[in-house]
């Protein structure tokens, strides 16, 4: 190339993008760094254990001028979400984080954010819900909000938290989606645990995640005020859709969101070199006859059991469900078809039924020929440990009960103490 010399000289004069950096971070701080990298513009939050360090770190970034965002201090989580709904409606990129009772207190506004089709992103640092009082981890808070229309993604480690927050904005702001996304991770188990996290350079993040372009209909400003979400009657009127059509569109957007998430993951992998599997992630499942299924800390811990299970003659692998809403029925069906036994470990209870993940895994497999035998287990409630031994015990029991395809309507809880 004749102009090679000139080209080289030009390249040398360009500023070198700051290199990637690996820091040892808690899960909470991994989330904060991702929010900073996403150039979030409005943050609103109320403190609650074990979430608070996420927003404390963000407030440091804002004070230091490292993040040009408006930090709104509110008197409750309900107001935190309400203020973000307003901010998002004006076309800004927004963030909050909460846990447990804080999330419950947001419930009404969660439905409002989803129904307005706003790309709000929130971290749910999962924690048990009272009564009785508990500050320890399980998935009950997030799972209890599954029907509000939010997308929910669960993480297994701190790198995944960082990466998923970045992906969450890209998914939420995709015009085929326009829905809020919750990035869920286990309180304490990840939130307060140090792990290495590779931070992308700002240039890489900017390339992956360009500035938010708002939903055109809703780009509100002080000069051109519009009313949002007026009373919406049962039948369409004067060219405006009715409630049922709008809700139908929301469900259609959710039905398509898993495919969007997979596209976003592929794009993220190109930039970062990391791919977390999309809606679900498999671990040693290819040749497996038995699948252990879980989310977050449960699926991670289950992986530790695989060597022992295989040594004992149970050909097992693990399916991590990353995307809990929309529930990835097709992906789960594809991975689990042909397996003999599926043991689902839930760190939550759909009270009065069984573990939520178990019920939905069963529903996903309905109608396929020769379906696997599915058995659910309730584990790790309110911070009780979910150990490798528990995963092995559950899997063995599921395999044993599968021989006669036993049906058990009552739930099976592992690691109960005091003679329960």
């Amino acid at each position, binding site marked *: 190339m004749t102009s090679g010399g000139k080209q080289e000289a030009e390249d040398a004069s360009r500023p070198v993008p700051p290199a990637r950096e690996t820091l*040892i971070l808690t899960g909470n701080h991994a989330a904060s760094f991702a929010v900073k990298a996403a150039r979030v513009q409005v943050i609103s939050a109320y403190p609650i254990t*074990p979430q608070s360090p996420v927003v404390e770190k963000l407030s440091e970034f804002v004070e230091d001028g490292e993040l040009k965002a408006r930090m709104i201090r509110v008197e409750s989580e309900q107001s935190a979400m309400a203020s973000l709904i307003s901010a998002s409606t004006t076309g800004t990129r927004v963030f909050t984080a909460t846990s447990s009772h804080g999330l419950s207190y947001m419930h009404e506004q969660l439905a409002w954010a989803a129904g307005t089709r706003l790309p709000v992103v929130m971290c749910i640092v999962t924690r048990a819900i009272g009564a009785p009082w508990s*500050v*320890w981890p399980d998935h009950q808070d997030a799972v209890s909000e599954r029907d509000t229309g939010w997308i929910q993604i669960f993480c*297994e480690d701190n790198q995944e938290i960082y990466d998923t927050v970045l992906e969450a904005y890209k998914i939420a702001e995709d015009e085929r989606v326009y829905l809020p996304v919750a990035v869920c991770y*286990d309180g*304490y*188990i*990840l939130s*307060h*645990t*140090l*792990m*290495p996290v590779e931070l992308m350079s700002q240039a890489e993040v900017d390339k992956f995640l360009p500035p938010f372009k708002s939903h055109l209909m809703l780009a509100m400003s002080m000069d051109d005020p519009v009313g949002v979400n007026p009373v919406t009657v049962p039948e369409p009127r004067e060219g405006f859709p009715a409630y049922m059509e709008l809700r139908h569109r929301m469900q259609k957007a959710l039905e398509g969101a898993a495919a969007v998430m997979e596209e976003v993951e592929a794009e993220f992998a190109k930039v970062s070199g990391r791919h977390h599997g999309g809606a679900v992630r498999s671990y040693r499942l290819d040749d497996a006859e038995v699948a252990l299924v879980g989310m977050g*800390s449960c699926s*991670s*811990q289950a*992986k*530790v059991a695989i060597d022992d299970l295989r040594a004992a003659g149970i050909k097992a692998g693990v399916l991590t469900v990353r995307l809990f809403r929309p529930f990835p029925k097709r992906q789960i069906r594809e991975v689990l078809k042909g397996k003999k036994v599926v043991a689902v470990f839930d760190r939550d209870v759909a009270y009065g039924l069984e573990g939520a993940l178990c019920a939905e895994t069963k529903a996903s497999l309905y109608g396929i020929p020769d379906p696997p035998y599915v058995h659910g287990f309730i584990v790790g409630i309110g*911070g009780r*440990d*979910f*150990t*490798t031994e528990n995963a092995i015990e559950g899997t063995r029991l599921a395999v044993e009960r599968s021989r006669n395809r036993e049906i058990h309507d009552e739930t099976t809880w592992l690691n109960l103490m005091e003679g329960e």
Partner: protein
Amino acid sequence: MAIAIAFYGRGGQGAVTAANLLVKAAYKTGKFPYIMAFPVFGPERRGAPVGAFARISNQEIFDRDKIHNPDIIVIMDPSIFKTANPTGTLKKGGIMIVNSSEDASTLREKYGIPSGTKIGIVDIVKICFEIKLLIDDNTPIFNTPVLGALASVLPQIPLDTMYSAIKEHFPNPRVAELNAEGARRAHDALVTS
């Protein structure tokens, strides 16, 4: 190679900081690309029994439970033996590092540590008063000397790497130097049997 370390002490003695600095040093060696450090999650108050855990490995760590079977137990405060003696949880062939002014046979007898269990003893309180590694001139700082003691039983993490983790933690060079000195003395003073 995965190594699990459990730290037990009382609130304010720095069990959590010790676990955090240990994994940072381990990561720095390049031999342990996978690390995790986490506290025992409970009420936080000065003087209450606390624990912290660390896992370091050359393979991805999937464990998300507490450490039930550590390779190394660090006892920052021997009074812990009276409230919740963790001796029985130590992995076979593991080592127990105790901050104490007493000798091994006394500790074994008082706290039921079997003769087959390896003990490393270092009098951190004495070291702290010698070099004035103290808070308010009267409260010894245990966490950084503990790292020195660990360096002497974990050859994969040299004392120099512990120093660099300590120095990153303390921006004030004089404070960093004093803490590094505490680590060095504890490293040299550790007696194993």
